[in-house]
Each structure stands twice: as C-alpha cells, then as structure tokens.
C-alpha cells in the first residue's frame, strides 16, 4: 500500500486541505469529506481557542482529521513561535504548519525568518511543516534543522496559477530526504496532478476548493487529480525520445578492433 508518511505517522491521502475562505462551514465540511483528506490546516488566528463551541473547530472531527494549526499572520520568527506555542498550550498536537509571511500583498514566505522559527520549534519538540519559497538550498537548510516536510509554493498563495516554480520544485524533490508537499497556487486538479506526476509526496489546496460554486464537487475532482498524478508517477512516465546522431558515433571505438 502506498502511504504518505510524515514524522512516522501514516496517511492514506496525499491531499491536504486548508479551511479558509469557504462561504459556509457546511461547504467546508462537504469539501473535506469529498477530498478524502486526513490533514486539514486551520489558521490559528481565526480560532477562538478559549471557546470550545468555536464555529470552525466544532465542524472538524478530530478523530477523522489531523488538525494542523498554521501560523498565518506571523510576520517574523518570534511571532510564529509564539503562535505555535499558543496552539500547543490550547491542546493541539505538537504539529505546526509554519507560515511566516511579512508581505501582506502576495503573502510570500520569508525564507530567513522561516528557517529561524523552524529551528526554534524543532528544538521545542514541534513537528514542523514549513511553507517556503521553492528554493532548493532553503529546503536543504530546513531539512537539516529537522523539519518533518518542506512545503514549497507552486505560485503565490491564492493565485490559482499552478506549478509555476516547476523547475525548482523538481530539484527540491530530487534532493529531499523528507516529504515534499506542494503548497499554494494550485488552482485546478490538473495542477495537483502535475505536481504529483513530478514526484511530490502530497499537495495542499485551499482557495481552489473554497472559491468555486461547488466546493464538494471540486474537492472530489482534486482527489482524483492527486490520485491520478500519484499513480502516473508510480507507473513511470514515458520520456521524450532523444535520437542518437548517426554520424561519428561516440562508441565506435568499441567495435574497431
């Protein structure tokens, strides 16, 4: 059986779902169910931690889903670390999706502050899944400080532009010893399939599910896209044929005896 394994924990689904921007909690729940996801991210800033009846959390069954709080809104490492510790203090598992996005326009992750926060949080016992620019060297550094995954962006968050960072994500996939989850910018099931065909271990989708008249149907389509891409990767894609040049063959010397 083909499982996604993060920090020793096994998952059947390779699709992670974000819970922001849905028009209603019902639409969100329907999307989660149809996506067959097992990990859902929740923006900590949106949760009323002290209120067990919080409208968002009360719709997410903790037996079915691993609740992955994210630090969205944090502008630097210090703020992200504080948010993560608040989540743990509130009873969440020590899993954290690290987001440090000082730029309020494109919400691009800050590589320097993300690395700083990751190092602190790993030492603090957190299982850290960092959202990051698709920078292969940063991915190496994050792996080295002990993050459980790397989560490079396909394109700026919420833009639905797909895997625009394809070449760098390919390098990250080639070099990583931990799961690579393509996060942000996947706007269509074909984008998710593309990332999975490349060998990504999983993808995270939010806007594309929330910003459609039928989130439940779109979630189902994304599930199929992820599965199709994964199966194609496992089966092995055919490549483009590279024809040998007919003249002056490089191996002729082997037959000249």
């Amino acid at each position, binding site marked *: 059986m083909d499982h996604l394994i993060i920090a020793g924990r096994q998952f059947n689904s390779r699709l992670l779902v974000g819970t922001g921007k849905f028009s209603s909690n019902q639409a969100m729940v329907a999307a989660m169910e149809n996506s067959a996801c097992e990990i859902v991210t929740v923006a900590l800033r949106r949760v009323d931690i002290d209120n067990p009846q919080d409208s968002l959390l009360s719709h997410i069954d903790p037996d079915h889903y691993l609740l992955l709080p994210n630090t969205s809104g944090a502008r630097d490492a210090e703020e992200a670390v504080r948010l993560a510790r608040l989540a743990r203090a509130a009873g969440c598992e020590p899993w954290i999706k690290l987001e440090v996005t000082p730029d309020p326009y494109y919400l691009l992750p800050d590589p320097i502050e993300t690395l700083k926060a990751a190092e602190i949080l790993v030492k603090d016992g957190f299982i850290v899944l960092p959202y990051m620019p698709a920078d292969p060297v940063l991915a190496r550094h994050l792996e080295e400080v002990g993050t459980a995954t790397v989560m490079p962006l396909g394109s700026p968050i919420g833009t639905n532009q797909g895997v625009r960072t394809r070449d760098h994500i390919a390098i990250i996939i080639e070099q990583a010893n931990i799961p690579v989850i393509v996060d942000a910018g996947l706007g269509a099931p074909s984008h998710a399939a593309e990332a999975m065909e490349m060998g990504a271990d999983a993808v995270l989708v939010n806007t594309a599910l929330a910003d459609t008249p039928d989130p439940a149907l779109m979630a189902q389509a994304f599930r199929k896209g992820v599965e199709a891409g994964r199966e194609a990767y496992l089966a092995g894609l055919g*490549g*483009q044929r590279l024809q*040998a040049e007919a003249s002056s*063959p*490089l*191996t002729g010397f*082997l*037959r000249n005896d």
Partner: protein
Amino acid sequence: MSFQQQLQLYPQDEIIRKIITTTPQQIDRALQQQRVNIDDFATLLSPEITDTQLEQLAQCAHRITKQRFGRTIQLYAPLYLSNECFNGCKYCGFNADNKFTRKTLTMEEVEREAQFLKTQGFRHMLILTGEAPKVAGIDYLEKAVKIVKKFCSSVSIEVFPMDTEGYQRMVEVGVDGLTLYQETYDPKLYQQLHPYGPKSDYNYRLDAPERAGQAGIRRVGIGSLLGLGNSLSDVFYSGLHALYLARKHWRTQVTLSFPRICPADGGFQPNTIVNDRQLTQFICAMRLLLPDAGLVLSTREDALLRDNLLPLGITHMSAGSCTAPGGYGAKDKDVEQFTISDGRSPAEVANLLKSRGYEAVWKDWDGAFLERAADD
C-alpha cells in the same frame, strides 16, 4: 537513515536479478527519462544493452557532461608517501604479506616529490599511503600536507579511513578532498579479500565518506575496484552511495572512479573481467544518474581508451603517474601499488586534450582562500 540501513533496502541478489532480467524496452524507457533515478540506473547497467542503445547512452552522457562541465578535464597527480601497510588486501601490491623493503618518505623527500610535480604543472595533488598509523598516521599526514600545500593549491588524500575527529584535523590542515573506495560492496567477498588488519572492518570503511562529510571536507571520491566482485552490483551500490552522500552532505561534491583491477605484485587474478564496453556503459550510466558528479579516470587505463572515453563523462584525469613512494624524484623505482597503463607525460596528456578541443584544468580551487591570513 544511514547508508548501512539504505543498503539493506537493496539486497544484492535482487539487484543483480533486476539488472540481468532487464528488457531492451526497459532500457529504451530509461534512456528517455529526463532525469534518471536509481531504478533507471540499474536498468542502464544491463548487459543486454544493444550497440544502438549504448550509443544513445553515450550521446546523453556526452551532452550532460558538456552542459555541466564544458569541454574541460581537471588534471591531478597521485603522490605516494608510504607503502607500509598492516592490511592483507589480496589484490594490492602493498599487501602486508608481500615481502619487500617498505618505504615511507621523509619530509625532505615529500618536498622533493611535490616540487617535481609542481614543475610538471600540477596544482592538484592526491597524497596516498597504506595503512600503518605508527609510521604514516594522522600526525605524519598533517606534516606532509603542510609541505605539499606549499607546492600546490589543492590537496586530497587517499589513505586509511579515519574517525570524524581525524578528518577534522585533515580539514584544518588544509585537505580539500578525500578518496576512499569501498573496493567491493559485497560484505562476504569483502571479508575474504581483507582477511586481517584494520581494513577488515567493512562498516567502518563504508561510513568513512560520511564522517568526512560531517567533518566538512569539500570533495569525497568513492568507487569500487572493478574485477573483485560482481561489477553490476558494485557499480549500482557505488551510484547509490554517491546519491546518498550527495543528498545527506549536500555541501560536499561527490566524485566517482571506475578503477579496473591491474596486475600487482602478489599475483592476484581478478575474479571477473570488466571489458571496455562495460566500462564505457558504467561511466555513461553514472553520468546520467549524477549529472554534477566528478567522474575520474586514472592511468590504470591505457592511452587509447582514455582518449576515447574522454567525451563520455570524464571530468578528472591523472597523468604521468607513478605509484611507488619517491618514484618521481628517484632513479630506482620501488615496488608499485599497481602497474600504470598510460605512460604519457602530463604535457603529452595536456596536448592531447587540446587537440581534442578540451581544456586541461590544472587549478580549480585554492586552499589559501580558507586560510585566516587571507582575511588580512
């Protein structure tokens, strides 16, 4: 995951079976991949490869190498410091059972040899010893490296495996590169070939390149000695090992060599013969697996073959080599570790490279960049 653990995932009999049961269609598929993974690599080692497929493989290897390295070949010279050795490696001329007068160079002799190599044009030198820590151990190497460094810009070592602290001492004294062949990745055969001496510890040797990576060495060279064990599995594991090191110690450049066993004093007969066609295939397949790795070809191979292999993925070559300690300066040649096959002088090799449209690179790094004095 350690490399020892990773090896467990690829049992030798399964790997050999996978390689020898490869179909021509599978080879075609592997040749079409934009980026070759470890499974494709196994496929490309198949003895079933046709001449046409081998030519395609060579074209790919040539194209990738030209793209990544240009038409350049880095030249280096081996500098043998000692042939004293406590190991019983059955294929090696320095084998402790082999009776001859042992020699370890004095510092004056080291200086003379390094000076000679400098006059030949070399700025990259690889110093070699056997394994005899009392006469040519870490303290000795530290002194020797300091002297050799005066005559070149980059020093590598091909000596005995050390612990991490030993490698740190080497890095501190200015060693940039390490070469350490596992010889064979078959643990049983390894025991037979290395019956006694410190080298009989398979795992200690296996993990040594990783310890060097931890110590911050800039380049690590690995490989297996072709002709000892099953060459298909040994080349496969060399590739796996290189891939592992490149992923885990990502600041360290990995290089690979393809030494075929040469006649040595002691009369060892190779267990298997790797012919020129297979060697060509191995080098090209490795280039597809590791586009950025340095691939090394020494003077073990004859001039004609070296010239023909030049465009297929090779990036580093030795030239004008002598494998006996003190052999460059002295008139009487001592016992050699093995007999070289390409006896051309460094200048002749450089001229040949030029005539083929390649640039001989004598200097590609300078240890002086890292010395504190450079900041002043």
